């Protein structure tokens, strides 16, 4: 029927060893994994893996480290269900998990060369964007991009992910970082209070040479896009990474389908004009 078929199962993961595990918040943890043979994942920022634990299941998780970081990859996982809770509670450094992927298209960063970068991250949305942020900020790549703006919002002051790194962004002269919390529950918090859209007016970007990249909870997209449009942002310069339910990661199981696209194949990264054509995307 079809020539040149791989004799492998699409669903068979390879093993990776957990080499770091660190708690960020009550719900989110940071993990570092390595393959025993030292090989790289060879991913693009914005891609994801299917993380697999035999007996428990599989879950798609964004790769949070930049491909410029060699020999390992990082994930940030929120405990919501079977796989994610098991990873949090039952597995420790030294344990193995299954990895399939990387899957998805990832960010077309070649196209971003020469542009200023505006990152808009809501909550866990920082996980996939961090991969691209760190790629952009990597000393070997930094000169390929212009200014870097990072907008990052959380529910409250207890919810920051990658706190140390966020501090380092705040301290970098070549990055403008803006933080906000939805609700101020902590008197130590001196920064902005309000949803992430309230940060956008504060940023002085040049709409002619800036790429906006958005990732966050589903409700966020519409409002961020609206706010960017208010600032005359060009639609084709707005990119977003979408979340959908996924079971296979290889364009078969159908759960991630939005109209005629499968998010795991054509996404999870889309530019706004494409998203506009999809009726159920945001």
């Amino acid at each position, binding site marked *: 029927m079809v020539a040149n078929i791989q004799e492998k199962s699409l669903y068979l993961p390879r093993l990776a060893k957990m080499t770091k595990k660190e708690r960020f918040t009550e719900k989110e943890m940071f993990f570092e994994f390595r393959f025993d043979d030292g090989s790289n994942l060879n991913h693009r920022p914005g891609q994801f893996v299917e993380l697999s634990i035999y007996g*428990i*299941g599989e879950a798609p998780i964004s790769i949070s480290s930049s491909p410029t970081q060699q020999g390992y990859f990082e994930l940030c996982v929120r405990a919501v269900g*079977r796989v994610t*809770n*098991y990873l949090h509670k039952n597995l420790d450094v030294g344990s193995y998990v299954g990895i399939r992927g990387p899957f998805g298209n990832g960010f077309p960063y070649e196209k971003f060369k020469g542009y200023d970068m505006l990152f808009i991250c809501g909550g866990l949305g920082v996980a996939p964007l961090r991969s691209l942020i760190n790629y952009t900020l990597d000393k070997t790549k930094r000169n390929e991009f212009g200014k870097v703006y990072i907008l990052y919002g959380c529910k409250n002051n207890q919810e920051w992910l990658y706190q140390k790194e966020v501090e380092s962004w705040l301290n970098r002269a070549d990055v403008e970082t803006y933080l906000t919390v939805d609700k101020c529950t902590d008197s130590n918090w001196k920064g902005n209070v309000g949803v992430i859209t309230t940060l956008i007016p504060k940023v002085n970007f040049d709409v002619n040479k800036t790429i906006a990249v958005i990732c966050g909870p589903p409700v966020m997209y519409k409002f961020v896009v609206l706010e960017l449009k208010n600032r005359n942002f060009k639609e084709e310069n707005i990119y977003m990474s979408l979340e959908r339910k996924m079971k296979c990661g290889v364009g078969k199981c159908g759960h991630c389908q939005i109209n005629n696209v499968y998010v795991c194949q054509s996404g999870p990264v889309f530019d706004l004009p494409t998203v506009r054509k999809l009726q159920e995307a945001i």
Partner: protein
Amino acid sequence: MKPRVAFFDFASCEGCQLSVINMENELLDIVSHIDIVNFREAMTEASDDYDIAFIEGSVTREYDIPRLKKIRENAKFVIPIGACACTGGVNFRKNFYELNEIRYYVYRDSAKYFDTFATRPVKAVIPVDFEIPGCPINAKEFLSVVKSLLIGKKPEIPNYPVCVECKLLGNVCMYDKGEVCLGAVTRAGCGAWCPSNSSGCEGCRGLVDEPNKNSEIEVLTKAGLTVEDAIQKFRIFAGYFEEVKK
């Protein structure tokens, strides 16, 4: 250390506990993974030191409440098993009658000896961790929950209707045979037990989330039931659900 497991019963037929005892082929394997420390139907000893409490039966009297609260304090996981415990089961039918009238109807002069109140499921009294519905529970599902607990995975009871399992099995639909069936609005997990035996689903596992009850009643009446009988049909097992109470 092996997890310590306890079974408790309230107003019930004890068929759910029996379903556990009836797992002859698996029983020896199960007891190799757990310590059963409380199982009145099968053993004399009893202990208050347990991790997992399976509760059968519905709550029908004052006396049950402190007992349940104690169980909640002792156990890490409280898991109601069976329709009685999860939704009141057939016992809930009592609530559709006038309480005093039904007491006197059944016990006449001796009715005064009964303290009884409207039937309620366990979760109406204490918080529960998850439920295994069904009348009786399906041993396969019970086993799968136990296995999940043992390996540290959150057990999952399906949120799709019995129709799904019925179709997966390739059964002839009951409506095709001129019989009625509640499979389209009833939570799956039983393996479409009744339809697979050529008998319409009676809804013993309770309704799925967001059941389209009006449409289902229309289906039942089109199949020949009166509206009254169609509602009665839901009340065999699913009286507890808001959609049916009304």
